[in-house]
């Protein structure tokens, strides 16, 4: 098959517009990693199964490896690189409370699944600020951690919910 003509589009990634010239068949993950250099999102299975490529699109988690970049030019994309900047009280070099909770609860082992885990957890906490353990497990059920550190990850999300709650230690 001949290479189709490239298309020009503007993607809003991490609160900034980026003009890109890409093939129509390019996935969002390819554009994020190889064109824009946001390598936080990882390619695991490449077919939407494992969740390591998860980013947020208009606040909802999506699989960037099976989303064509040309389909997400109207809306806000958030990758792990942009998460800390969303935190209003953040000082230079500080992480988002959700990231801090993952670090302090040992929710990160090899780190490959962490960006997808953290962003999926962010979408959950934005919709439900005090999720039960069952709700956390449900929300993360499509995210695979091959280090199998699930218990610590679930603890981290529960801890993050506490930190983000009014009166929690992050406010």
């Amino acid at each position: 098959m001949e290479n189709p003509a490239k298309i020009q589009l503007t993607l809003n990634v991490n609160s900034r517009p980026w003009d890109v010239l890409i093939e129509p068949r390019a996935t969002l993950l390819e554009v994020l990693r190889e064109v824009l250099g946001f390598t936080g999102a990882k390619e695991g299975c490449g077919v939407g199964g494992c969740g390591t490529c998860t980013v947020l699109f208009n606040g909802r988690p999506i699989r960037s490896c099976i989303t064509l970049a040309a389909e997400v030019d109207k809306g806000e994309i958030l990758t792990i690189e942009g998460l800390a900047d969303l935190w209003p009280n953040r000082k230079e070099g500080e992480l988002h409370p959700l990231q801090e909770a993952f670090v302090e609860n040992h929710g990160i082992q090899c780190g490959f699944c962490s960006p997808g885990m953290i962003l999926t957890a962010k979408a959950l906490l934005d919709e439900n600020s005090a999720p039960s353990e069952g709700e956390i497990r449900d929300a993360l059920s499509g995210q695979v951690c091959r280090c199998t550190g699930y218990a610590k990850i679930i603890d981290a999300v529960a801890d993050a919910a506490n930190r983000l709650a009014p009166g929690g230690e992050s406010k």
Partner: protein
Amino acid sequence: MIKPKGLFAALVALDAEPESRALAGGTDLVVQLKHRLTAPSTLISLLACGLSSIRREGGGVTIGVGVTLWDLARSPELTGANDIIRKAASLVASGPIQSRATLGGNLGLDARCNLYNQSEFWRSGRPACFKAGGAVCHVAPGGVKCHACHMSDLPAALIALGATVKVASALSERVVPVENLYTGEGLKPLALERNELIVSVHLPDQQGGAGFEKFRVRKGLDFALAIGAAYVEKDSSGVVTKAKVAISAVGGGPVVVEDAAKALIGSKLEPEALEKAAQAASATAKPMKNSDLTPAYRKKMAGVAVKRAASVAGGEA
């Protein structure tokens, strides 16, 4: 890729190019592209076609096929028995898939098989099967047809609720019951012409109760291995006056199980009646050895799914 503005423009484009395919959420189609299972000349994006509304009309709810499973799972319009659509949508894979996957994509999902839905490299180890354009079935060697399994979640629930779909091409439009959308054949599971698109689903308001049960190995990742859905109406003394039962993910398409409904009607959903309905469902299920777990177990679980769905339906009717 083209992004037609409006449904008619999309239908014209689909009609004009025989090798084109419509793209909605892409959670299945993009995987097929990556696996080289399809090689469309053009992708027709349905994003700008205005198919994403859920509205009340004609004594029920009309849902555009572009509505995501994420929105469907949270829709306040789906009340009473229609609530099982919310449940079914929430059980499709997990949130990051539901946020892109659409109602239309779920209804129009192709039949699947462990020996077909694999990468090009994986498949290259043996001759092409019927579904890949060859002349053999690796699941049933010596068989004369494709045994791929239709594993999508929403059809059984919609069928039990008596939903209809609007199907349109550039030249025509028709409304059919959801069960008529499926051929039961793994090779070509959809009774749609190449230039036709499912446009919307209409769910009538319900008097009774409904239940939906789905089995799979890993929640959040796997496709269904058996699905049962039931709708039940009861009179004031608790006797079932109307019932509809459907199963899916255990054959080439979703099926209405008339005998299960018959077993429920006239009963008070006593254990014996539920058991009879379960047996009817198991007898109708025709799973093959093309996904996880054995066919015998999935056949049995189709009955269990129906039993549980009917029991929940009865409790809500």
